[in-house]
């Protein structure tokens, strides 16, 4: 009998009252209802009593699932009693349980799935029970029972298998190839058996396969996948607790949401075999920052051959040919093209083992070409809410953007996508700026802010989007922004208590961005955290270890670096070609270099570059980074020629990446060029070329306007300043270094950065006569070298020599001598170029200079290292000058003068005409000429020196002193 309208109103009021009452008070309240409402009592009682039913009523349409059956040890669930929880996942919990009536000895694994209460639950459970009864196989975990208990909780009683997941088993037992194949066959045969009974598994993956101590594999969860799929809202196999896991084992048709067939199981078996044989997953190389990239890759089916993933030669040979073909046959994106049944799969492997011809054939060229065409029409991915969300009607996806083989194309695509989708008029924006004119980074920034405001209450989505944006920034080299969004992603994930793997990946991304930015202390914190989070995950741990090692090396903690790198290499030994592997190699090479073993490091660097290129393609960002490091090291070791090819490759790749890549290229090129000009051996490059290159880069960056962070423009100014310093034009150098250092020192983080700034400031100050200031900086310089762990590296000798020079310039000879004698014993520079011995001789030469200027040329002569037989190198002009001076001071101008002339002859080709040290050298030569009786020569030199000081007056008196003496002596007798 339908409830009358006025009764409805009453019912509503009464319910309001009832809902406020504690359950115990309900009955009395119902009894006490006034007479006119009494007829409603029955209905009220029913509805209130079945409040649990009401909870499940309509729950399904609302879409939220009933929470995982809350259970405790000792609970009764159907005919079973729970003993202890043995597993927990998004799909539900698994308990070890026994029969409550003690009727059977065996224990079962009781699965309490999180199923939404929907129509037909009990029916479906019963169906599962029937299916379960069909499957009796030694390698399939039995499903004994399935049902719904009195509380309405669904349960599944499974055979309890005490075993270890398959992949873990293979690793821990280090099984040989044939052994792995045989294990695989166990699984495949079990699957084939089930197929024979018309049961498809749908969720084959190693975690669903346990191996017991006797070496038998057991398949779990047959048919359950289908059960859960039917019940859960999106029916998405890969959803667990609202998180989406990487669907490495999902077949293309599963991803597209199409019908699952026997062939889907074949596909998953193919992935499994791939992993068993090669130790990696087919799509391990796809960066999983976005879901879309992985799914897209699966749909396209471009899979590197298993043999290509294996480092060990013997294994690779064994896999090549037949096994490669078999695996690829199972992994074809089109189900029709795979093995039609698991049985066919099994038979082909058996043929292989028996040595008979297998049926699988390697892909034909035509097939590959056809796939290439399909690549450009990659479909929108169902079930990937991110892609759907962002793309809307725009017609393409981030996935395509990130995979665009031409990276310039990528920048354009990203720009367009952002413009298309976030076509929101920002309120308050002034002017009619055409969105398309703005640089990509600015658009991305807007996009990121929109993520914040547009998706409130959807932290999962936000987190993933932050990750995507951050990743794009990182690839483009905009590190500050990358760090910003990576931070947001991490914070969001922490706030929603996301899984460790997800947090680990995000934290790693953040740590890398911070590291690239130079925020080393922060990077260390995050790197440690990322490492802690990735401990359990074999695929994440190596990358985290390598990054932690890089950070440690930057911080000068060599011991830690070694330990971390060893661990990373250990982890990676079976992984084949990966980005983490390339980085680890590069790290190993960096370490060797810092240990002064550059020659050994070079081939390892090259190998690392090759690996990175193999994995990421010609524009590999990893390869760019390694190349830049390597070219820098070549330059530092005075091997400019060898640096060129790597530098060119890196810069051209960077410049193809778009706006931020260009900026980064400008920076790297300028820094390198400046260093090439001002290194110990001058003239790895000419002054004009250095200056022009940097000016060009400065202009290119200036065009970008306000977008460019100040630190970048400061860096460029500093590089130019350095070149002017090397050239000797301190007038031009000073304003550049001063303004840039103001910005840079505020941001200097790493020891290396601070060393750079300190040493540059020292040199400028010293030349401008600000010796106290210079002294302070030199102290810092030496200290920083020590902290970096480079205390005995030959490069460090220069620090002492310069510090001593500074003191000499103040005539503080004792102090200068002290510094030099306190210097450690420096190693010989290994793998260095022509001027390498120059480093080790720096200290004795500096000491000689002290003695000379103190007025003790004899002592100076004693200390001077033996003269180089072959003095063709330009580097030696300092040395030649010194010898010449000493000889003159010893009263041997005939020997001294030619040397001096030679020295200034070399020197004047290298520097600015008004360079103060050249001027000084001329004055000194003039004095010697005078001594040798060449008055007019002396006069000429004096004039040249004078002109120099007129052009550049504000230099240290040290430079001017010899000229003053010379001019004094050149004055006609009688004048004062």
């Amino acid at each position, binding site marked *: 009998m339908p409830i009358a309208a006025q009764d409805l109103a009453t019912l*509503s009021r009464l319910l309001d009252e009832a*809902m406020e009452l504690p359950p115990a008070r309900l009955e009395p309240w119902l009894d006490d209802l006034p007479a006119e409402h009494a007829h409603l009592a029955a209905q009220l009682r029913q509805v209130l009593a079945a409040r649990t039913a009401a909870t499940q009523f*309509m729950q399904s349409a609302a*879409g939220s699932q009933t929470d995982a059956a809350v259970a405790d040890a000792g609970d009764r669930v159907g005919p079973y009693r729970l003993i202890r929880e043995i597993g927990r996942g998004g799909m539900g919990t698994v308990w070890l349980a026994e029969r409550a009536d003690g009727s059977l000895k065996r224990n079962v694994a009781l699965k309490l799935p999180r199923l939404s209460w929907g129509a037909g639950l009990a*029916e479906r459970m019963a169906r599962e029970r029937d299916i379960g009864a069909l499957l009796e196989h030694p390698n399939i975990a039995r499903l004994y029972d399935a049902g719904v208990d009195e509380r309405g909780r669904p349960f599944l009683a499974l055979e309890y298998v005490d075993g270890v997941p398959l992949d873990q088993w293979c690793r821990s037992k280090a099984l040989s190839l044939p052994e792995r194949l045989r294990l695989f066959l166990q699984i495949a045969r079990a699957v084939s058996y089930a197929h024979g009974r018309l049961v498809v598994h749908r969720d084959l993956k190693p975690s669903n396969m346990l191996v017991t101590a006797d070496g038998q594999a057991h398949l779990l969860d047959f048919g359950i996948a289908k059960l859960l799929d039917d019940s859960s*809202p999106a029916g998405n196999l890969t959803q667990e607790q609202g998180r989406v896991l990487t669907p490495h084992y999902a077949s293309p048709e599963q991803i597209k949401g199409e019908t699952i067939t026997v062939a889907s199981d074949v596909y998953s078996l193919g992935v499994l075999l791939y992993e068993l044989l090669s130790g990696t997953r087919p799509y391990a190389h796809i960066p999983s920052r976005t879901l879309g990239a992985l799914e897209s890759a699966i749909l396209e089916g471009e899979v590197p051959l298993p043999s290509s993933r294996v480092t060990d030669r013997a294994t690779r040979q064994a896999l090549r040919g037949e096994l490669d073909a078999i695996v690829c046959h199972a992994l074809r994106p089109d189900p029709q093209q795979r093995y039609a049944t698991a049985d066919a799969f099994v038979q082909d492997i058996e043929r292989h083992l028996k040595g008979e011809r297998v049926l699988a054939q390697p892909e034909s060229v035509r097939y590959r070409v056809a796939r290439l065409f399909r690549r450009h029409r990659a479909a929108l991915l169902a079930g990937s809410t991110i892609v759907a*969300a962002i793309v809307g009607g725009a017609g393409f996806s981030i996935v395509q953007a990130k995979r665009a083989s031409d990276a310039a194309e990528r920048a354009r695509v990203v720009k367009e996508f952002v413009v298309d989708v976030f*076509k929101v008029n920002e309120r308050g924006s002034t002017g009619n700026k055409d969105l398309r004119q703005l640089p990509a980074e600015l658009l991305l920034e807007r996009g990121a802010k929109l993520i914040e405001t*547009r998706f409130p209450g959807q932290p999962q989505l936000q987190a993933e989007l932050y990750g995507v944006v951050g990743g794009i920034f990182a690839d483009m080299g905009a590190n500050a922004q990358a760090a910003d969004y990576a931070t947001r992603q991490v914070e969001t994930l922490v706030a929603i208590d996301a899984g460790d793997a997800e947090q680990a990946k995000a934290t790693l991304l953040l740590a890398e961005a911070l590291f690239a930015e130079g925020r080393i202390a922060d990077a260390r914190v995050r790197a440690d955290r990322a490492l802690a989070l990735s401990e359990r995950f074999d695929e994440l741990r190596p990358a985290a270890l390598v990054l932690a090692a890089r950070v440690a090396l930057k911080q000068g903690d060599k011991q830690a670096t070694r330990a971390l790198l060893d661990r990373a290499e250990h982890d990676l030994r079976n992984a084949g070609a990966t980005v983490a592997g390339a980085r680890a190699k590069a790290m190993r090479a960096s370490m060797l270099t810092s240990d002064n073993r550059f020659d050994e490091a070079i081939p390892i660097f090259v190998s690392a570059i090759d690996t990175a290129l193999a994995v990421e393609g010609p524009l590999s960002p990893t390869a760019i980074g390694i190349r830049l490091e390597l070219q820098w090291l070549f330059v530092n070791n005075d091997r400019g020629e060898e640096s060129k090819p790597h530098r060119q490759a890196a810069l051209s790749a960077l410049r193809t990446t778009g706006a931020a890549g260009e900026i980064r290229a400008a920076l790297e090129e300028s820094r390198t060029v400046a260093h090439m000009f001002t290194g110990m051996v001058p003239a790895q490059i000419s002054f004009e070329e250095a200056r022009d290159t940097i000016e060009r880069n400065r202009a290119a960056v200036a065009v970008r306007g306000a977008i460019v962070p100040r630190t970048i423009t400061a860096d460029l100014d500093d590089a130019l300043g350095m070149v002017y310093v090397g050239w000797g034009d301190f007038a031009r150098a000073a304003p550049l270094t001063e303004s840039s250092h103001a910005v840079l020192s505020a941001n200097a983080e790493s020891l290396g950065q601070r060393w750079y700034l300190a040493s540059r400031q020292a040199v400028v100050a010293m030349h401008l006569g600000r010796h106290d200031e210079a002294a302070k900086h030199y102290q810092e310089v030496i200290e920083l070298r020590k902290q970096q762990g480079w205390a005995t590296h030959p490069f460090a000798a220069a620090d002492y020599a310069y510090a001593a020079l500074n003191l000499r310039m103040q005539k503080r000879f004792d102090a200068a001598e002290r510094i030099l004698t306190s210097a450690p014993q420096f190693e010989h520079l290994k793998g260095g170029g022509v001027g390498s011995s120059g480093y080790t001789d720096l200290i004795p030469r500096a000491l000689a200079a002290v003695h000379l200027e103190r007025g003790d040329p004899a002592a100076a002569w004693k200390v001077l290292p033996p003269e180089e037989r072959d003095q063709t190198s330009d580097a030696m002009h300092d040395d030649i000058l010194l010898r010449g001076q000493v000889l003159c001071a010893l009263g041997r101008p005939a020997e001294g003068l030619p040397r001096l002339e030679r020295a200034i002859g070399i020197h004047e080709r290298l520097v600015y005409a008004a360079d103060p040290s050249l001027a000084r050298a001329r004055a000194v030569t003039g004095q010697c000429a005078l001594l040798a009786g060449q008055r007019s020569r002396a006069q000429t030199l004096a004039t040249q020196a004078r002109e120099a000081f007129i052009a550049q007056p504000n230099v240290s008196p040290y430079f001017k002193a010899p000229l003053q003496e010379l001019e004094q002596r050149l004055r006609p007798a009688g004048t004062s």
Partner: protein
Amino acid sequence: METLTELIRRVNAGEDGARDRLFATAYDELRVLARSRLRDGGRNTVLDTTALVHESYLRFLDSNQLRQDDRRAFFGYASRVMRSVIIDSVRERRAERRGGDATELTLDTAIAESLPAGEQQLLDVHAALDDLHAVEPRLAQVVEMRYFGGYTELEIAEALELTERTVRRDWDKARMMLLAMLRS
């Protein structure tokens, strides 16, 4: 053809008829989505309106840009549309399957289990909702938005300017009332 974003802008600007045009455009989108989901015969349990609306482009419309009352109207509208589209689809499908006869059964949890896909439940709730609306309009609105529209409690709270707690309470109460109505 104006895009939805543009329409929203116009609604904000207070243009005449913009809201109607917005709703008209939205309607088409919703219909397309609802039908495409319902067409998916494999998943026959629930209509999963949550996922439906999640995938809906509309959701990612910057409806935050709409003023409060416009937004409320929009959400409400979307829910109403979803409801009618879903019911229409269910009726069609049933007609196809049974050759035209859709007998109404009363809802009982026991019987519910043997019905295909909770479709009956949808039809019953749909019928009862109008009656509920007459007595408790806000409850009915919550049901419509939650059950048919698939909006979360937070979104409903924001749209109707209630607290989440109130929304939850309304939802509980509404369901009890519907249960009572459908059992009798």
